[in-house]
C-alpha cells in the first residue's frame, strides 16, 4: 500500500482511550470524530473530539459494537481513518475489513492478523511454527467430551479452559480436577458463544505460580519489527490486571533478550502491522517464557512503555497505518521505571462489586513524571453499561523505588468521591511488602485480598475518633445518597449482611 496521510480520524470507542487517541490527533493536526451512546450523551470523550456522532442505544451491542452504525458514522463524517481503541471492536476482523472496504484506514492490523491471533488455537499453531515457545495444551479446539477427557489427561490438572475467541482475561475458566471438567467446559462453550460469537474452547496447562509478562511490539506490515520492552502484569485479580510496570522486577538483560527474540520472531513471521502485545507466562523457577496470546491492538497499559521509551504509541500506530516503513530505525533506549495503576469503579473491599453513581469531589492531580489517563468529570454519572475501568494513574521514576513512592503520593492525592474505586487499594499495594520487593505472581493479589477487614484490636485513637465523626457525617448525608449506593439497606445484623454481600460471587468471562 502506498503512503496515505490521515486527515480525519474516527475513534470507535469511549472513555479514556477515546480521549487518549484524540490527544495525539490534536497534536498532529488530525481532525477527530468520536461516537457516543445515549448513556454517554454527556460523557467526557464526546467533547475531546472536533465532532461527535450519536449512535443511540445504551448497551455495547446497541452502540459501540454496532458495526453498521459505526460505518455510517465514518461515511457521514468523512473520516479517512478509524482507531478502534481497545475492547469493543478492536479485535474484530470483520470490522477491520469493513473499514478498509469503505476506503478508510484501519489503525490496527489486517483482518487476517486479527483472525489468526484472535483464534487462540491458530495463534498457538503460528507461534509454534515461528519458533516461539508455548505452554503445553490441546492441539486445537475441544469439540466433544471424549476429546476433552483425553486432552485434559495429557495436560494434567489444574488446567484452564479458554475461549478461542476470548482475550484480555475474559473467557478463561480454571479446572482443578477431573470432576469439574465437564461442567466447566459446557459453561465455557455457552458463555463463549454468547460473549464472543465463537463457541470454540481449548485447554491449556495452568502454570502456577506464574508471572504474566508481555512484550510490546510494533510491526510495519512488511516484516519490519520493533521490540519496546516488556511489561510486568502479574498483579491481577481474577485475570483482571490492576498494576502494570516496566521493566519487570524479575528479568535481567539476558532474559529480556530472549523475550525480545521470541517477540520479534512472531511479529516478523506474521508480517504484523501495528502495535501489538505478545503475552507470555513466565515460570520464575525454570526461568522460561511461554507464549499465551497476542493482543492485536493498543493495550490499556501502553503508557508505561511510553514513559520509558519517550514514544507516543498512538502516534506510532498512526504512522504505521499511513504506510510508514521502519527501514533502519533502531529500537528506543529503555529509560527508568514506570508503573500504572488501574482505577476501577469497584469496591475492592467487597469482592470488587461494581459501584455506580455520581462522581463527586473529583481531584486528578498533576505531578512531575506523573500522568492520569481518564475521562472523568465532577458530577458525571458512572453507568452500569460499560467496563468499570475509569482510568489509570501512571508514574515514571529513575528507579523502581522512586516510581513506587511517586505512585503512592499521586494516588493519595487522587480523589474520586461518590463511588467506590480501587484507589485506596492502590495506596495499600504501594505499602505492601510483596509489591515493594517485587516478589509477587499472578495469584499474590488474590491471596493478599483474602482477609478480614474488621480489626482484631482497637486501632490508634485518631482512627476511633475519625470513626465517630464519619458516623455523624454519614447520618447527615441521609437518604439522598441512598439511591446511588451499591449496597442495599438491610435489617438484621452486620454479619448477616456481610455474608449476603459475599453471596454475590463474580463470574469472569
Amino acid at each position, binding site marked *: 500500500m502506498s503512503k496515505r496521510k490521515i486527515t480525519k480520524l474516527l475513534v470507535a470507542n469511549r472513555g479514556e482511550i477515546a480521549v487518549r487517541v484524540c490527544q495525539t490527533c490534536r497534536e498532529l493536526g488530525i481532525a477527530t470524530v468520536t461516537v457516543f451512546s445515549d448513556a454517554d450523551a454527556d460523557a467526557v470523550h464526546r467533547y475531546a473530539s472536533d465532532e461527535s456522532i450519536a449512535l443511540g442505544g445504551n448497551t455495547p451491542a446497541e452502540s459501540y459494537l454496532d458495526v453498521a452504525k459505526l460505518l455510517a458514522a465514518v461515511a457521514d463524517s468523512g473520516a479517512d481513518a478509524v482507531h478502534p481503541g481497545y475492547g469493543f471492536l478492536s479485535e474484530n476482523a470483520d470490522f477491520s475489513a469493513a473499514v478498509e472496504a469503505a476506503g478508510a484506514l484501519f489503525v490496527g492490523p489486517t483482518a487476517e492478523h486479527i483472525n489468526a491471533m484472535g483464534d487462540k488455537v491458530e495463534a498457538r499453531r503460528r507461534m509454534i511454527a515461528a519458533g516461539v515457545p508455548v505452554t503445553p495444551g490441546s492441539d486445537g479446539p475441544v469439540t466433544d467430551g471424549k476429546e476433552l477427557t483425553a486432552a485434559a489427561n495429557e495436560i494434567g490438572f489444574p488446567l484452564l479452559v479458554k475461549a478461542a475467541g476470548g482475550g484480555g482475561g475474559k473467557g478463561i475458566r480454571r479446572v482443578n480436577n477431573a470432576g469439574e471438567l465437564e461442567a466447566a467446559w459446557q459453561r465455557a462453550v455457552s458463555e463463549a458463544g454468547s460473549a464472543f460469537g465463537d463457541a470454540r474452547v481449548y485447554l491449556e496447562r495452568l502454570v502456577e505460580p506464574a508471572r504474566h509478562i508481555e512484550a510490546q511490539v510494533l510491526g510495519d506490515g512488511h516484516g519490519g519489527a520493533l521490540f519496546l520492552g516488556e511489561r510486568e502484569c502479574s498483579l491481577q485479580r481474577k485475570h483482571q490486571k490492576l498494576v502494570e510496570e516496566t521493566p519487570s522486577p524479575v528479568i535481567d538483560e539476558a532474559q529480556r533478550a530472549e523475550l525480545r527474540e521470541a517477540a520479534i520472531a512472531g511479529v516478523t513471521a506474521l508480517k504484523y502491522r501495528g502495535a501489538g502485545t505478545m503475552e507470555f507466562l513466565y515460570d520464575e523457577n525454570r526461568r522460561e517464557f511461554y507464549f499465551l496470546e497476542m493482543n492485536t491492538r493498543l493495550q490499556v497499559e501502553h503508557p508505561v512503555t511510553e514513559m520509558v521509551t519517550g514514544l507516543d504509541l498512538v502516534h506510532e500506530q498512526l504512522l504505521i497505518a499511513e504506510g510508514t516503513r521502519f527501514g533502519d530505525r533502531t529500537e528506543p533506549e529503555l529509560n527508568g521505571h514506570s508503573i500504572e495503576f488501574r482505577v476501577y469503579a469497584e469496591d475492592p473491599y467487597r469482592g470488587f462489586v461494581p459501584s455506580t453513581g455520581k462522581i463527586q469531589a473529583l481531584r486528578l492531580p498533576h505531578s512531575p513524571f506523573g500522568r492520569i489517563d481518564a475521562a472523568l468529570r465532577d458530577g458525571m454519572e458512572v453507568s452500569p453499561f460499560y467496563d468499570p475501568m475509569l482510568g489509570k494513574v501512571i508514574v515514571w521514576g529513575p528507579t523502581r523505588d522512586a516510581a513506587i513512592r511517586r505512585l503512592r503520593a499521586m494516588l493519595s492525592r487522587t480523589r474520586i468521591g461518590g463511588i467506590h474505586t480501587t484507589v*485506596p487499594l492502590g495506596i495499600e499495594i504501594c505499602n505492601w511488602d510483596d509489591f515493594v520487593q517485587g516478589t509477587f505472581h499472578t495469584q499474590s493479589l488474590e491471596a493478599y485480598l483474602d482477609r478480614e477487614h474488621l480489626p482484631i484490636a482497637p486501632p490508634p485513637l485518631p482512627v476511633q475518633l475519625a470513626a465517630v465523626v464519619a458516623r455523624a457525617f454519614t447520618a447527615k448525608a441521609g437518604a439522598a445518597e441512598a439511591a446511588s449506593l451499591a449496597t442495599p439497606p438491610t435489617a438484621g445484623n452486620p454479619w448477616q449482611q456481610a455474608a449476603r454481600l459475599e453471596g454475590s460471587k463474580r463470574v469472569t468471562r
Partner: protein
Amino acid sequence: MKYEVSGSDWSRDLVARTGPLRREWQVTVDDVTHTLLVEGLEGNQVLRLTVDDTTHTLTLLPGNRPGQPLRFLLDDNYHELMVRDETDLLAELLGGASGAGGREEILSPMPGVIRKLLVEPGQVVAEDEPLLILEAMKMENEVRAPRAGTLSQLLVAEGDTVAAGAALGEIEAGS
C-alpha cells in the same frame, strides 16, 4: 451522643459533644476528653480532623449503612469499624434478631441486567445457592440465596434492568 466503636473481638464506648457550628468536638474515651477540630471540605465528603495538634484527612466512602461496618479513609489508609450510636443500640435491643425467622428479601447487590434466572418461585433453596445471574459492567455475577427457605416471590424476569438495592425476590423460612 454516645457511640460504641467495635472490631472483631472488642468494643469501646465514646461520648461526643459538638460545639456551635459543629467545628469543635469534645470526645471522651476511657475517661480522657480529647478536643477535635472538624473542618468539612468538598461538601463534607472530605474532612480535616485536628487532634492533639496533628491534622488528619478523613475521606467518607459511599454506601455506609447503620448496622454495617463503617468504612472510611484516614490519611489515605482504609479502615472498617462497627460504629453504633445510641439510636442503633436501642433499635437493636427492641428489634431483637430481626430476620432470623420469617422472610427475607433478596436485594440486588449492584445495578445491572438480569441475564438468567436459575430458580423458580416456590422452589426450595439452600443458603448460598445461586438464584440468578446479573450482568453488570461486562461481568456476570451470581446472586445467591441470603438464607435457606422457599422462594416465595421472584420480582424480576430475564432481561430486566435493576438498580442497586432493588428487591429481586423474597425467601420464606421453611420448605
